[in-house]
């Protein structure tokens, strides 16, 4: 759907900052999240998890547990049929089959009358494990002698396909030109290896669901998820149910950031409920969330970039190795595609290796894969700028991708906003502000693709002229406010006259998951189309009321009007006027849209970061931070800023202190918010934001998704700032104080 008016548009409501429709529910405690629902006769479900990183499961004895009074059902691998194809790994991740593949892997589950009984029952389940050697580090897992997780995993993407199984699932390659030729033209070449530890999305709401399957095989599921249609489809397949027999309702969701795009406990709760004949609620503990949901990849990244003295980059090359946990599917492909996506390069290559290790299967985390590769590339660009004595902003401006650039991953860019963000950074007061002792400034840019995808909305005109908008994309950051704005904008009515709900899977057609920064773009586009569909019908009804042709009616400021003098002289009819008599003019009025949305414009961001280091302890504080990002068109600027700030702070956490720490025993050592250190309020300054608007030609209002790009630059922005302040290049993330202090000490000794 193209931009309505490429020459510029004016809006009545879009771009304003009204109160969000779910605000009062959320400040009074009334909003119902995943764990807030209950049902009569409800049982408590709890999971037994593997204490071993890698073990063959010889036998599971549930007899004693089942005999415990109050235990109503137990499920194990025997209750999930073997599935082949796309969902095989999902099924095996939900419940271990022949092997437990990581510390925390589910091996059995109990439904009992209360928590105490369920816990007692778990202790009575006897699992006979044969402990196997394990591997949790990506480079170790790639070595020839490493313990192999899957005997049927043969590396894809290499010729010839290996005959021996390994932990290397796939090789990806993107790029164009001739990097060797490019490096030969360079005046300065820098190559470095970078490393990052795995992080967790860290949503504050643990996974929770309430499942109820009746004896007739009809099921209902209440769940906190980013995509209840996907949950429905996957659960139905795993349990052998008809999709039509499972109705999934998305609760309010307490954060997702990609981590709630798959299933963990949901199929288990349904299986327990089906077996017990009663509703079953499962709520993960925080420890379970860390051990057994979907953190991100840890990785090593090798980057080599060549540059001419005039600042023009001649070649970029990268090799990325991402572990994706116990099953294939790390986002290394997206890491490789996005690594050099900010630059207009003649010679570029990025190779990615997808590796399995004994850790929980990774799930998406905000721009999955991209922050990791951007950390390497943007760090090397910073170093090159220093080496040729050029301002890092000038180097970026000289090489920034623009309209017509053949991107490093294939497509040629249309209108994009990268340059605009870099130019805005250059003139921002932050960039010129003086720095004190032990302080350093970093800059980095970032890219994200943005998704479109399958979307279905229904817009119903109520009898009083208000509007009920049903969407199928869970609202993870205030999207209902944006939908109300867009529907009201189109219909010419007030923001408060539209109420948007997230419909359940049986009430509305299929919608892809709320991911890929697609909701405001795709559901927004569908909302605009549905509103236009409704307007057409409203005009038709007005025509009928006036006895003129529908073509002779136009819609303006919320009213139907005769198109011109020839059409007749009728006073305008408001939406409410037409709605009131709808029964007499043909019945209910509704607008619909079913679309596979395309044209999600790519997104770019440039960040500025100042840090101060305590040279005696390595303690690092971010003292100033500015996010500059292209939104295309900000529908509700407050929530756009919120995405910028939230992503930046998650990136700051990743850069400085967040990490998964595995012991030599393969067990996660910091499965809690005490030692998995996400930023707290006192760690941070205000996060300044600049919304750049370079309209996306693929959306009627010009908007681009804004949810993810903001986490792409911070790792490098913070690393560049720390490197400047510490006077030594930091290449390992997180840059925790012991690492900084050590690097500074070594640099001084040199």
């Amino acid at each position, binding site marked *: 759907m193209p931009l309505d008016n490429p020459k510029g548009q004016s809006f009545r409501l879009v771009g304003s900052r009204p109160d969000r429709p779910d605000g*009062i529910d959320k400040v009074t405690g009334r909003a119902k999240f995943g764990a807030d629902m209950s049902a009569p006769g409800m049982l408590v479900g709890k999971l037994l998890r593997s204490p071993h990183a890698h073990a063959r499961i010889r036998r599971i004895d549930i007899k004693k547990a089942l005999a415990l009074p109050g235990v109503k059902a137990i499920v194990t691998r025997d209750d999930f049929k073997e599935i082949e194809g796309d969902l095989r790994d999902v099924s095996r991740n939900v419940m271990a089959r022949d092997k437990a593949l990581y510390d925390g892997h589910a091996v059995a589950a109990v439904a009992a009358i209360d928590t105490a009984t369920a816990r007692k029952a778990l202790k009575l389940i006897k699992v006979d494990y044969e402990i196997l050697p394990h591997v949790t580090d990506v480079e170790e897992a790639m070595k020839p002698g490493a313990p192999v997780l899957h005997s049927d995993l043969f590396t894809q993407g290499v010729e010839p396909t290996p005959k021996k199984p390994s932990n290397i699932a796939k090789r990806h390659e993107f790029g164009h030109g001739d990097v060797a030729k490019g490096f030969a033209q360079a005046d300065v070449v820098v190559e470095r290896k970078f490393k990052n530890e795995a992080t967790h999305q*860290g949503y504050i709401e643990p996974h929770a669901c309430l499942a109820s399957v009746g004896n007739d095989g009809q099921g209902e599921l209440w769940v906190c998820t980013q995509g209840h249609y996907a949950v429905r489809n996957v659960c139905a397949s795993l349990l052998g149910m008809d999709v039509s027999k499972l109705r999934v309702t998305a609760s309010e969701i307490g954060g997702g950031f990609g981590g709630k795009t798959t299933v963990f406990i949901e199929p288990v709760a349904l299986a327990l409920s089906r077996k017990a004949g009663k509703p079953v609620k499962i709520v993960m503990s*925080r420890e379970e969330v860390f051990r057994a949901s979907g953190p991100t990849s840890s990785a090593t990244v090798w980057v080599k970039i060549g540059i001419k003295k005039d600042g023009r980059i001649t070649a970029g090359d990268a090799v990325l190795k991402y572990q994706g946990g116990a099953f294939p599917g790390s986002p290394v492909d997206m890491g490789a595609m996005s690594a050099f996506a900010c630059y207009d390069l003649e010679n570029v290559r990025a190779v990615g290796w997808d590796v399995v290790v004994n850790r929980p299967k990774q799930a998406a985390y905000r721009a999955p894969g991209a922050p990791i590769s951007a950390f390497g590339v943007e760090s090397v660009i910073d170093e090159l700028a220093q080496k040729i004595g050029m301002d890092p902003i000038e180097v970026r401006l000289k090489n920034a991708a623009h309209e017509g650039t053949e991107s490093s991953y294939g497509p040629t860019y249309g209108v994009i906003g990268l340059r605009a963000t870099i130019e805005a950074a250059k003139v921002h007061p932050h960039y010129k502000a003086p720095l004190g002792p032990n302080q350093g400034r970093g800059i980095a840019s970032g890219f994200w693709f943005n998704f479109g995808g399958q979307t279905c909305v229904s817009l119903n005109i109520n009898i009083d002229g208000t509007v009920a908008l049903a969407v199928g994309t869970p609202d993870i950051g205030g999207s209902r406010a944006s939908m109300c704005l867009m529907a009201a904008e189109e219909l010419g009515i007030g923001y408060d006259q539209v109420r948007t709900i997230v419909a359940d899977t049986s009430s509305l057609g299929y919608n892809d998951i709320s991911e890929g920064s697609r909701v405001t773009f795709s559901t927004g586009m569908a909302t605009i189309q549905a509103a236009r569909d409704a307007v057409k019908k409203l005009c038709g009804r007005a025509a009928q009321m006036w006895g003129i042709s529908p073509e002779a009616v136009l819609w303006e400021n919320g009213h139907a009007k005769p198109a011109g003098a020839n059409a007749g002289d009728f006073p305008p009819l408001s939406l409410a006027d037409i709605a009131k008599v709808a029964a007499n003019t043909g019945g209910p009025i509704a607008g619909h849209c079913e679309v596979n949305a395309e044209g999600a414009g790519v997104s770019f961001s440039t960040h500025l970061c100042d840090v101060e280091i305590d040279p005696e302890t390595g303690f690092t504080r971010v003292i100033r931070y500015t996010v500059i990002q292209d939104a295309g068109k900000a529908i509700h600027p407050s929530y756009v*800023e919120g995405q910028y700030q*939230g992503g930046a702070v998650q990136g700051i956490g990743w850069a400085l202190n967040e990490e998964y720490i595995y012991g030599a025993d393969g067990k996660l050592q910091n499965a809690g*918010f005490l030692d998995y250190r996400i930023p707290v309020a006192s760690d941070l300054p205000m996060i300044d934001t600049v919304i750049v608007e370079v309209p996306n030609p693929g959306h009627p209002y010009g908007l681009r998704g804004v949810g993810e790009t903001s986490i792409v630059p911070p790792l490098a922005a913070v690393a560049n700032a720390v490197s400047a302040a510490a006077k030594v290049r930091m290449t390992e993330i997180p840059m925790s104080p012991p690492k900084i202090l050590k690097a500074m000490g070594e640099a001084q000794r040199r």
Partner: protein
Amino acid sequence: MSKVRVSTTINGDPVEYLCAAEETLLDVLRDRLGLTGSKEGCGTGDCGACSVTLDGRLVCSCLVLGAEAEGREVRTVEGIAKGDQLHPLQRKFIEHAALQCGICTPGFLVASKALLERNPNPTEHEIRFWLAGNLCRCTGYDKIVRAVVSAAAEMRESR
């Protein structure tokens, strides 16, 4: 397993309940009394989503036993608004877009209210340190801090 009988006051109302000795106040509020506004984000006192006040003192209800509430006065997020009148903090949180997903919001409101009752004019620094035990993963705290500053200003003016 015999249960403990507890008489307490919650949001100004007398309440009686039976609970197991090991049950937390958070479990009692959510599972026995239907007050699901207090959230469990961690169960270890590290996230503050379950914040309530106990005799006016800010605490994590996940680290209080239900039995300990005997004779005390508990206040939760459900008690912040007066009827249909939102507290200034509640209005300012909405106005400043200080919530995205909203799961941490009840805890932030209870904690912020306790702060403003002690210190009607806190600095940004004081707000950030007072609220350090309340984790938010969506906002980066910027808009939360602004909302508290703004609510404090409004409350000072209306006094």
